[in-house]
């Protein structure tokens, strides 16, 4: 018991809040519609949904820790998805599904990396603020996607393509695999590689990082490239989920991923953030989203709730900091 009490005390404030919110949602659903919510079926359907925005959130996370932001991820995902689907559609007949899918997947990742490279160049070399670059990037990538599809969704994919996003293995959805791989990979990269630590340093103090021998341009490029690749992975999953490709799937994910990282304890100015926080936030948001559908609430109310949560969580953080500062000042004055 003591051990549990201690570990709760030592937890980050934002993680504490997240657990609290998770418990609140679970309790509310317990009261309102336990029968439909707490079923294996429902759990399974949730697992089908969160990987596509969850992986995006990790891309957003790395960029934010580096002191920037990546608002173009939805555009990258759709563009990569479109290219992947184009390849599969065109080559499926000649070389078979599996080779064309492999090529398609590879192309999606490459496109993601290229988009990220573009973002990273504008931000790291031209020093244009990340918010502006990635907002522009969103338009650009979406526009490119639109140009390739000429508007309507690309359909006509072989059934096998659906498998990744909609299939399962002994009731465990396939999509959980790329998700888990990403979680482990990002976790490892941020904690145990030289690059990961450099991202934290750069996000904390860009100038000091430079003076400490960190190549900020290379680090920035790598950061947005990784984010772009993660966007590419999402593109693959999303197009598999819908069995088609379009330039504007998942537009609500931009707000959602921003909300996830903020709830997950990331500081918008950079330098802070852990995978565990983001993971918990992803789960929380999935629970909320799922609660909405179970309770058959209007999905646009979700947007309202997300917006309110975004503002609310930051307000709570700021008030908490102010109270802490006041307390410290009072203590110090009393000491005198």
């Amino acid at each position, binding site marked *: 018991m003591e051990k549990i009490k201690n570990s709760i005390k030592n937890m980050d404030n934002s993680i504490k809040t997240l657990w609290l919110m998770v418990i609140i949602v679970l309790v509310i659903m317990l009261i309102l519609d336990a029968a439909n919510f707490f079923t294996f079926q429902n759990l399974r359907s949730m697992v089908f949904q969160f990987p596509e925005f969850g992986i995006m959130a990790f891309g957003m996370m790395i960029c934010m820790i580096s002191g920037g932001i990546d608002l173009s991820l939805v555009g990258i995902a759709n563009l990569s998805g479109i290219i992947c689907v184009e390849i599969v559609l065109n080559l499926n007949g000649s070389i078979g599904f599996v080779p064309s899918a492999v090529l398609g997947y590879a192309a999606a990742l490459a496109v993601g990396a290229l988009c990220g490279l573009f973002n990273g160049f504008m931000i790291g070399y031209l020093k244009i603020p990340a918010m502006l670059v990635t907002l522009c990037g969103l338009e650009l990538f979406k526009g490119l996607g639109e140009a390739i599809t000429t508007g309507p969704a690309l359909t006509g994919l072989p059934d096998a393509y659906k498998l990744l996003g909609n299939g399962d293995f002994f009731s465990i959805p396939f999509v959980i695999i790329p998700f888990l791989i990403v979680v482990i990979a990002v976790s490892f990269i941020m904690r145990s590689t030289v690059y990961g630590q450099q991202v934290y340093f750069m996000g904390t103090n860009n100038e000091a990082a430079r003076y400490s021998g960190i190549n900020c341009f290379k680090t920035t490029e790598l950061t947005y490239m990784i984010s772009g690749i993660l966007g590419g992975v999402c593109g693959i999953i999303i197009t598999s989920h819908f069995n088609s490709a379009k330039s504007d799937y998942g537009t609500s994910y931009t707000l959602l991923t921003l909300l996830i990282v903020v709830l997950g304890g990331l500081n918008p100015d950079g330098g802070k953030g852990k995978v565990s926080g983001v993971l918990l936030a992803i789960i929380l948001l999935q629970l909320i989203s799922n609660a909405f559908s179970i309770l058959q609430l209007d999905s646009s109310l*979700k947007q309202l709730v997300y917006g309110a949560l975004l503002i609310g969580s930051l307000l709570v953080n700021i008030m908490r900091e102010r109270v802490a500062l006041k307390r410290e000042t009072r203590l110090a004055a009393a000491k005198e």
Partner: protein
Amino acid sequence: MKNKKTKAILTSNQMIIVYIMIVLSVLIGTKNSAFFDFSTVITLCRVALVTLIFALAEMLVIVSGGIDVSFPAIACLTLYLPVFLETKIWKIDNVVLIFVLAVVFGLAIGAFNAWMISIMGIPPLIATLGTSSIINGALMATTSGKEISNLPASMDALYSSYFFTYTAPSGMTYSLSVLFIVPVIFIILTALLLRKTMLGRGIFAIGGDRNAAKVAGFNVRKIQFFVYMAVGAMTGIAGVCSCILARTAHPTNLMGSEMMVIAAVVVGGTRITGGHGTVIGTVLGVFLIALIENNLIMMGVPTYWQSFVVGLVIVLGTSITSLRAKKIAQSAKV
């Protein structure tokens, strides 16, 4: 000295936009001679009307060092709610009241934004993104996207009021709506505000160096509240204008226009980091984007390439503005 000044003006951001517009006009005109007609000017004015108001408001925010992406949502709310109240609840017909309500709602939301940003210290992008989502979600949930197409007669009356009507050689008539006076008034007011009043200089001050502004004696809080509330009021009016011109009150049509507006502002020479910007530049930026958007087809660009081309223009425009700023920062000092 005179030569240096003339050279500076000729290579300024504003003139570059003018050059581009001239080049584009020539390009379009050679493909479609109907372009070189007064009707084009009228069409451009009509298309740019609402964007002009948005852009002027957004320019104020960006110059002050902040940003506001909630303005499309505010406009949606201010165009829908007053019309809803008048046609469904109060059953009256008063276009002045519509405008007044729009301004009031806009001011209220602007004040909320200002509170979050100035007093609570939430980053402007996130704060206004939150506001935008809340409004949009609420509107969608309550209206399910259904528009009110029976506008009060007084609004329709404004739609049908023109300054003048022009008949092109082709026989088609083009009219300039009286509503065009609104952006014109705002252009004059904004220019005067920024150039001639201490409040306006204060906006530049906090955009240039917020701390310096504070110690110089500026009331930073007051200025920030003014800016975000001005955005609210201006977009409120813009929303109603857009509704009148579209002859229908659609609760979510204007969503998604943030990028275009911010692009026009940045292309016009306003630095995203704050402290720099001109009314002329913004107006030119709006017209350039309108020119491009409206005439892509005439330039031979298929519709599905349009998003990409506009995106490219935005990227180029913002790169140029940022590069210029970088060059100045690194150049030899006097």
